[in-house]
């Protein structure tokens, strides 16, 4: 079922089967509906089931209780969860884990292990509202940690249930990273609802102490950790978008074939047949953009190439998933505009992930900047 495997990759095939089993008959979309309708927050039962299956530790080294696998395996799981419209914050968690994995402080490793077991939820806080418009990377992290205290804002922080934040702070030597507990003195947390039923956080730091005990990575070391984290997370989000868009496309294909008007299947009308083909092409483009990104990680390309590959995948997947989602609603007609139909639930998740860590325009700017800098 997945785009990301060839027959030789048994590990990925087994993971795909395992995700399909977990998804079952529409369990994910049922949780997504409940999340939206009841503002239920994280479904802890589903989350610990995912932890037991090992998915929260795919990238985490075996020594820290994870599976020690790669981005290719991660993408298989994210795609499968996307197909099921599962709302759990796997990609958000992966972002935090990939950042933590690049930190040298001892307690970074402890935090990493705690995220893999599902015991703790960690969120990366690296941008303020202004930068959220052009979420480029370490260069845009605010330098607001003067004299050992942090005073400033971090926006669009997920998952909202996080109990500790990995906070990026700019400085003359580059980005430093600190672990700050949710209940740290001087930190206030504001919750903003997101269209898929999750919330995002805006953090207000008022003189929060940046002491050594909290430091995960010193000035400079944080740049690489954050950059890699962004690249990994963008690929993971791309894979989830690919899964979401694949399911949206297939639902639409089925609907066109079964729905009758004027005494004939909608799919008999050439305008709609050609539209379906154009959506199919968008889905194939996602598959190819994602494949090159996974290959870049599989072959351990250098960080700039990984950044470009991730930006390329996220640009394509964000854009194409929105095209497919929008057209899925259109091709379902009025029923597609209702809560009863599944396509809307998928589209709300697509809207959330397409924007997360930078939308298609932002990714293309990033890609252009990196390409021109390399030339």
């Amino acid at each position: 079922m997945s785009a990301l495997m060839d027959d030789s990759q048994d590990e990925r095939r087994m993971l795909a089967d395992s995700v399909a089993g977990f998804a079952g008959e529409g369990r994910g979309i049922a949780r997504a509906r409940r999340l939206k309708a009841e503002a239920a927050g994280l479904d802890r039962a589903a989350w610990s089931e995912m932890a037991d299956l090992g998915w929260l530790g795919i990238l985490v080294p075996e020594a820290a209780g994870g599976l020690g696998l790669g981005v290719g395996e991660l993408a298989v799981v994210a795609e499968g969860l996307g197909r099921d419209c599962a709302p759990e914050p796997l990609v958000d968690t992966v972002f935090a884990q990939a950042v933590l994995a690049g930190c040298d402080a001892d307690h970074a490793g402890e935090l990493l292990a705690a995220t893999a077991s599902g015991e703790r939820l960690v969120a990366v806080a690296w941008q303020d509202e202004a930068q959220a418009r052009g979420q480029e990377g370490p260069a845009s992290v605010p330098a607001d940690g003067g004299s050992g205290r942090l005073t400033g804002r971090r926006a669009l922080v997920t998952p909202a249930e996080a109990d500790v934040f990995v906070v990026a702070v700019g400085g003359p030597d580059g980005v430093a990273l600190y672990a700050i507990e949710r209940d740290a003195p001087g930190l206030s947390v504001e919750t903003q609802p997101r269209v898929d039923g999750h919330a995002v956080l805006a953090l207000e730091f008022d003189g929060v102490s940046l002491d050594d005990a909290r430091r995960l990575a010193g000035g400079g070391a944080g740049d690489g950790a954050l950059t890699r984290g962004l690249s990994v997370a963008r690929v993971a989000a791309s894979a989830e978008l690919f899964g979401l868009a694949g399911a949206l496309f297939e639902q639409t294909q089925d609907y066109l074939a079964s729905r009758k008007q004027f005494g004939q299947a909608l799919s008999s009308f050439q305008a709609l047949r050609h539209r379906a083909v154009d959506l199919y092409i968008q889905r194939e483009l996602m598959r190819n953009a994602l494949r090159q990104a996974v290959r870049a990680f599989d072959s351990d390309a250098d960080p700039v190439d990984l950044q470009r590959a991730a930006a390329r995948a996220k640009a394509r997947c964000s854009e194409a998933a929105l095209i497919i989602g929008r057209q899925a609603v259109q091709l379902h007609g009025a029923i597609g505009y209702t809560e009863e139909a599944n396509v809307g639930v998928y589209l709300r998740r697509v809207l959330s992930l397409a924007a997360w860590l930078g939308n298609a325009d932002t990714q293309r700017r990033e890609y252009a900047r990196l390409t021109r800098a390399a030339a």
Partner: protein
Amino acid sequence: MTDWNAMDDAAFRREIRTYLEAEYPKALRHPSRRLRWHEVSDWYLKRAEAGWTAPGWPAEHGGVGLSPSKQLIFTEEQERIGVARAPDQGVVMVGPLLIRYGTPEQREQYLPKILSWEHIWCQGYSEPNSGSDLASLRTQADDDGDHWVVNGQKTWTTLAQDATHIFVLARTDPHAERKQKGISFLLVDLDTPGITIRPIENIAGHEEFCEVFFDNVRVPKDNLVGNVNEGWTMAKALLGFERLFLGSPKQSQNALGRLDAFAEARGLHDDPAFSAEFTKLALDVADLSEAFESFAAQVRGGETLGADISWLKIWGTETYGRIAELAVQAADGEAPLVEGQAIGEDASVDVLNLYFGCLPTTIYGGSNEIQRNILAKQVLRLPE
């Protein structure tokens, strides 16, 4: 004799690249229009002497006998350096057809002359009223004892004015139950009385294709290929992995490179609006290339291409079109200048060339609308 197929792919690629770099004339690289036979004949005759007219034909018929995987490398290297295409219908269509369906006499008569370029073939498929709906063709071949008498008209016949022969799909049974039945495949010498060739000037001012008129043209019965009334089936069976190249990223890559050079010279990359458009196209080309490689890997692995290859042609040619459109926009007031746009001392870009270059690509080889029909039916299996 070298066993090319035994050579590893990288070594083979190196060999071909070195050969082309050294031997292929610089002036003929990446031509901006389809070149005529007299412009490319030196190169192809030289290759013929070396035995390299038909890399894909089996060695016993005078080809090189390359495996699909090696042929792919050979074609990729030709594309890379921008080798001008020959009027190659003999190599691409007639040879493989005769090898598969022809009589020993037909092979003996025609194959050596295709290899030596003594015969140059053109393709008589499309008609004024049979374009996308090719099977509706009306050129008629009537049985007259030991001859077929052909009447009708073919069109969009590429480089007929340079050809010595034409292969024709003609209707031999007007009463067949399906229009695809009742069509036969005929080999016709263009010197036969009753044939008139009229070049058609295209939108860019070049004469790349022709109309061919048949007025009581007598074709010997020996020139029928395969069984009578089975021409359609044979023509379809010949569609092989060459379809891959309808979706080649080369045209788009070249066009993007020209646009990049223009943008660089005029400082357009500093314009955020242009840069956004350009980057979007660059990624469209990058993802096209990735997909092409993935289909090419199927060919290398010995798989037959499925109907899904059609999406590559759609995306490739439409991407080329969007690049050409952006080039025309970028050149602004200078766009309609027929001598192009200067980008420095003695370099220039010709946006009209890109623009006119992209126009036929979404029409030929099965228009993109036909490709969408194919995908809807054979890949998406949407009920009609």
